[in-house]
């Protein structure tokens, strides 16, 4: 009998032992949970910022849709491709007949906010990491803020005021955070936010020269000043443009314009903010998804989809002897710099040379880079600001620097208004297919006439801003309104 009682006690003991407080604390084994301890190192923290740069390699962020809303939409480019291939929505974007459900506006919105999330994830993770070298943490914070400012700048240029999402939200979302994610802020508020981020970035980032090795591809103090100057430019704060341009130091124009768009010219002396695609035939790759192939010659003898083709208007805009024309446009029936033939049988007369990659010309993951800020732009921004402030004579030498590099003589103009036009024209030719033209046209008020010259109708009061996506408005449920013009 005793034995039974003993075994009963053992059994019960098992249960009571089991009922200790930690019985229910089971470590998950299925997947690695989000635990800051797992990234509490220099490497872990750096990875959070690397992921932001990686966002710029995405198809939605930088490729087909982005080309549509920043390039095909302009007077520099046409949809291209075959007449029957709309590329989803490229035809209606080219024709300025798009609406709020047009996918490329939604994908651009989503991609930039996805990038902003990566910035916010990094910025909220860093304070939890106590094993990261403090200097590194400062720099990484600066990089994340630059990136966030850059993406808000894209959003505000395209859509006007947008929701300012500056921190992460919980589930279920609080009312305050719901307001934050669904309420469009004014354009001025967005610019104030961008300027604050850039001020923080300037504080935190090192000069370009302080980087070594692959880190040279990171953004620096100079990048932040240059972007801030451009943000000032869009707000017509001319003196600030000049001041901030003057703080962009350590850069210079490269002598060969066309070299910048080849592999050997990547991250040259002129490069201020550049996205680094790594070409590969394997998957996953770290090139900008289909950027090259979607813009490559199409049809018999071609190797791509043939979208985003230069217009005749652009080709005709270059003065004789401008080296930028041949560096920007592939002509049907010619040979490329690497000897590749573009037969006369391809579908379109011209293609975008700046998207070309010699080694990865027909694969998804191209090594083509995107140049978002070059020193040439700093020069032209400063020239524009000086000219607007009446210091036209100081602006002219800057314009001539750009013309000279392009193989052209000095500008013949001297009046403020002529120089203004000259600067606008240099901007067009210098930055063609570098995703600047549309915003520049709207900013400078040239859009209506430029579109008319290209045979399109730009409706004043409507087309200055893209439509905000229907999906967002549906989420907002009245908290936000569509842009004017009857989208």
């Amino acid at each position: 009998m005793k034995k039974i009682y003993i075994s009963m006690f053992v059994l019960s003991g098992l249960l009571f032992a089991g009922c200790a407080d930690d019985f229910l604390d089971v470590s998950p084994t299925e997947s690695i949970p989000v635990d800051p301890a797992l990234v509490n190192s220099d490497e872990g923290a750096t990875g959070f910022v690397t992921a932001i740069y990686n966002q710029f390699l995405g198809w939605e962020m930088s490729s087909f849709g982005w080309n549509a809303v920043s390039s095909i939409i302009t007077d520099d480019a046409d949809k291209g491709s075959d007449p029957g291939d709309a590329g989803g929505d490229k035809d209606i974007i080219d024709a300025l007949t798009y609406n709020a459900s047009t996918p490329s506006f939604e994908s651009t919105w989503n991609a930039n906010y996805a990038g902003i999330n990566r910035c916010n994830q990094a910025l909220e993770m860093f304070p939890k990491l106590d094993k990261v070298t403090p200097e590194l943490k400062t720099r990484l914070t600066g990089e994340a803020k630059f990136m966030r400012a850059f993406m808000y700048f894209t959003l505000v240029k395209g859509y006007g005021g947008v929701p300012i999402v500056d921190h992460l939200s919980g589930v279920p979302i609080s009312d305050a955070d719901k307001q934050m994610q669904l309420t469009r802020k004014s354009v001025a508020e967005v610019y104030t936010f961008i300027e604050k981020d850039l001020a923080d970035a300037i504080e935190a980032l090192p000069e370009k020269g302080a980087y070594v090795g692959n880190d040279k591809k990171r953004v620096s103090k100079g990048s932040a000043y240059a972007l801030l100057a451009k943000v000032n430019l869009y707000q017509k704060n001319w003196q600030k443009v000049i001041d901030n341009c003057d703080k962009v130091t350590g850069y210079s124009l490269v002598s060969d314009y066309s070299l910048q768009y080849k592999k050997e010219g990547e991250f040259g002396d002129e490069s201020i903010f550049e996205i680094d695609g790594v070409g590969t035939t394997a998957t996953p790759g770290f090139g900008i998804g289909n950027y090259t192939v979607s813009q490559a010659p199409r049809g018999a003898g071609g190797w791509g989809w043939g979208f985003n083709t230069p217009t005749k208007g652009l080709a005709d805009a270059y003065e004789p002897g401008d080296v930028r024309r041949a560096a920007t446009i592939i002509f049907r029936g010619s040979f490329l710099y690497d000897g590749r033939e573009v037969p006369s049988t391809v579908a379109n007369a011209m293609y975008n040379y700046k998207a070309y990659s010699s080694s990865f010309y027909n694969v998804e993951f191209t090594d083509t880079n995107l140049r978002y800020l070059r020193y040439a732009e700093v020069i032209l921004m400063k020239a524009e600001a000086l000219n607007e402030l009446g210091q036209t004579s100081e602006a002219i030498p800057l314009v001539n620097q750009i013309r000279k590099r392009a193989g052209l003589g000095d500008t013949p103009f001297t009046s403020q208004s002529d120089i203004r036009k000259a600067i606008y024209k240099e901007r067009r030719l210098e930055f063609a297919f570098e995703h600047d033209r549309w915003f520049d046209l709207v900013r400078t008020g040239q859009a209506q006439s430029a579109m008319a010259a290209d045979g399109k109708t730009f409706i004043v009061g409507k087309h200055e801003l893209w439509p905000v996506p229907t999906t967002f408005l549906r989420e907002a449920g009245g908290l936000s309104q569509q842009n004017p013009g009857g989208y």
Partner: protein
Amino acid sequence: MKNFIFSFLALLLLPAYMSGQAIKGKVVDSSGMGVPGAVISASNSRTSTDADFDGNFTINAKEGEILKISMLGFDAVSIAATTAPMTITLKEAGDTALKEVVVIGYGTRKKIDNTSAVSSIKSEEITKMKVLNASQAIQGKAAGVQVSSSDVPGSTPSVVIRGAGTALGGRNPLYVVDGMPTDNINNINTNDITSYEILKDASSLAIYGTRGANGVIMITTKAGKGKMNVEVESFAGFRTPLKTVKMANADEYVRYSNAAFSGAFPAGRFSANQPYNTNWLDEITRTGSYTQNNIAISGSSENVKYFFSVGNYEEKGILNGSDYGRTTIRNNNEFKLSDKVKLTQNMSVSTIKNTPMPLSAFTNAYRQSPLVPVRYADGKYGVPFISNGVVGETGESFNNVGNPVAQLDYTNERQQTLTLQGGLKLDYEIIKSLKFTSQFNGEFYTYKQYNYVDNVALWLSADPTRVQSKYPGDLNVNTLTRSRDQYFNWNLSNYFTYNKVFANIHDVEVTAGIEANVQGTREKLTIDRKNVNPNADYWSLKDVNVASSVTGYKDEALNQRRLQSYFARFQYKLMDRYLLTGTVRRDGSSQFADDKRWGTFPSVGLGWIVSKESFLSKVETIDLLKLRGSWGRLGNQNVPLNTQTFTSGLDYPFGSGTTINSQVDPNLSWEIVEELSGGVDFELFKSRLKGSFDLYEKKTTNTILNVKPYSASGITVAAPSHIGEVSNKGYEIALRWDDKINDNLSYWVGGNFSHNNNELTNLKNVQLSPIIGGSLGNGQNTKILDNTSVGQPLGSFYMYEFAGIDQANGNMLYYNANGEKVVQTALNERTDKKYVGSLLPTSTYGVTMGLTYKNIDFSVDGYGTGGAKVYNGKKAQRFGGENIEASTARDFWSPTNTTSSNPAPSNVTPVASTYYLESADFFRINNITVGYKLPLKDDQFFSYCRIYVNAINPFITQKFSGFSPDVTGDGKLVEGTQGVELDAYPSLRSFVIGANLKF
């Protein structure tokens, strides 16, 4: 307290009453066997005793005094004491609720004293259906319990009790097998089951707390009793599809396809004289067969009850090559260690060997053209190649369907499962009214599988012009996947049961205890290999260069799940007629966040046995009338969990990148169901008419659905959160009439009907990540659950509404949002789709009838459902050159037949529409049994021999034009293919002959 003192005094004074003499006797059952444990009481002498193991007893009573002899399962007998040794024969009790005992959580209760809704299915009902899994046998036998099952060998039936309350969580009930909570009972031999009870309402389920929301099925396996008894059951049967779909033959196919291809081939693509006419369904199927053999040895001695059984089930499926076998061994013993201590041990071993075949072969057989031969004259597999209008070994391909016979021939998959289940239970009677029970159960499961694919053979079979020497060198010759899977779960419960009657009118039973449950880490190992030796004996990786042979290696460990619980139940009966049950369980689950892991699940049940009131006791027609009602709260912890992981691989030339692209809801916990229910039980006309009626309203108050983050959050992964409300309202009626006309003839007729209304009643104001389900595999989907689904039942179909055939050109037309008839290219996916009904039936019903005449028994059971829809997914698959059903091939729109209900032949993939949505209403005879008991004399070796014939699913009436309206698909209500017939296995009709023997 007064009572207590009185009892105490009574105990002390007891010897004083013993003024009688020793009356001796024996209690036997109708077969003359002693009835151990029978209680003999002499009311005048206030003495009582138990019969010993052989049924003998001695009691101090006066001669002539009335002795009352009672025993569970027998009718009580009152008889005058005699000085001569008495022989008292007890008659086995009829099945009336007055005597029936039901298994409830952590105990048993007389059914009449129970306040809850419990359906009990007896073992005979389960073994009558010759099926593998006991749940399949109960289809149609319990009101409020919807069972759908597929006849794929080894498949697990889906059981839904009182409606589905969850969209993303688990819908299966909890099975408790001899105290072991488990998810599946495929390892239990149906012949070993003594009772199968379904706890349906909150009053009975709340004791299972966070696992109770989907209902609980309590399974008790057999124990030995009396003299050694050997029981043998053997049966064998053959199986054929209950209903098949007639496909077009070669001539019909040619006529239809020439019309469909007339755009590209104005002169006709196929010539009229074709060399082959293949019936593909016949080619891939065979007459299935199955056998089962069981032997059970059981019995008891004074201190030991034993039960030992071995069972073997073998099935050859109707799909060529599919085989399934299960062997089970069970040993249940009960040891009486002392007068106060009982130890029960049970152990079950089950091994399953399965050779599955791909069910997509059915769809391929449906779609492949009859012009294609199984094999050409030279032995090569037939392919859909056509040259000069005639099918042959060369030419161009006219559809993209594989050869289903080749598909089956080159399928080489094996699965093997071993499940060990066992437990120890100790019952200790501390004092007469207080019992302590400690029970430990464990379950060990191991599974291994391989799948070998001969790529060269598949490559060759896809094109007869290919030769092996041309097989591309960069492709793998073959691939092999091997996997292993195992876990160990255990459960330990300790509880006290206190039962006492105070002052003769207050009957109190209290149960209280604690439980720990661990679902161990499930370890899964999967290895993908290439270019292995075709002989399975040479797959060992010893001394093999792993790098060149292994292409994938996955070693997973699923999260361990633990549950810690406290439970208590209070059952009170006043004056034998007023009933009150209160239960509470407090569960802590390791699956949820620290502050969200504990939950309390209370319930209360009330009952009133009206027939025991004096005003009804005189009414002769009413034998029993009982009202009951209950309220309770239950949980479903089998829900999606928070998983927030780092998203890595976001690299850039500086190095590797990581971010977070998901959010989690810190409040995520189990789903909570609140149920209010009421019912009435009655027995009328000398208990010949028995029945019950139940009403319930179940509300899942916090259904989990995936919330889609707002676009500006930049986060794209949806997070599960508590945001929905699902309601199930319904009623259940069960009626049964039993009558015995004379000693030779008795009969019964019964039936049940259940109605359930399922509805997603509410959603919080959040944006749902739409759950799109019912994929047809061709870009079309048939189901959705998103913000627009409020007011719809779960599992709703969502598609375009068919608007008829355009008589001018034979095009299919659909209604758009404005009610206009348009062609499919003019439809808008966002605005024109509609909710068109659910795959969940609103009503299910079962009927049963039977009779025994002398040695012959006969019974019929039927089952039907109403209100459900089924989508004919395979029919909606044509995109060019596939076969069509004969009915379509014989009547389609043409310039000369403009009023046909079938559109003009076309090769355009049709959009999902109500054209293919059909009523799933059906009524099926599930079982007809005829048995004959051989008249045996006592001295013969066999004490019992019954020979029987069964027809399982012999008849069905259905509106659905496909194979089976009872389509479980992958069993996923919203996101999966349940309710869509695609790759469907037909329901089977089986004829079985078998025998039961006892000796």
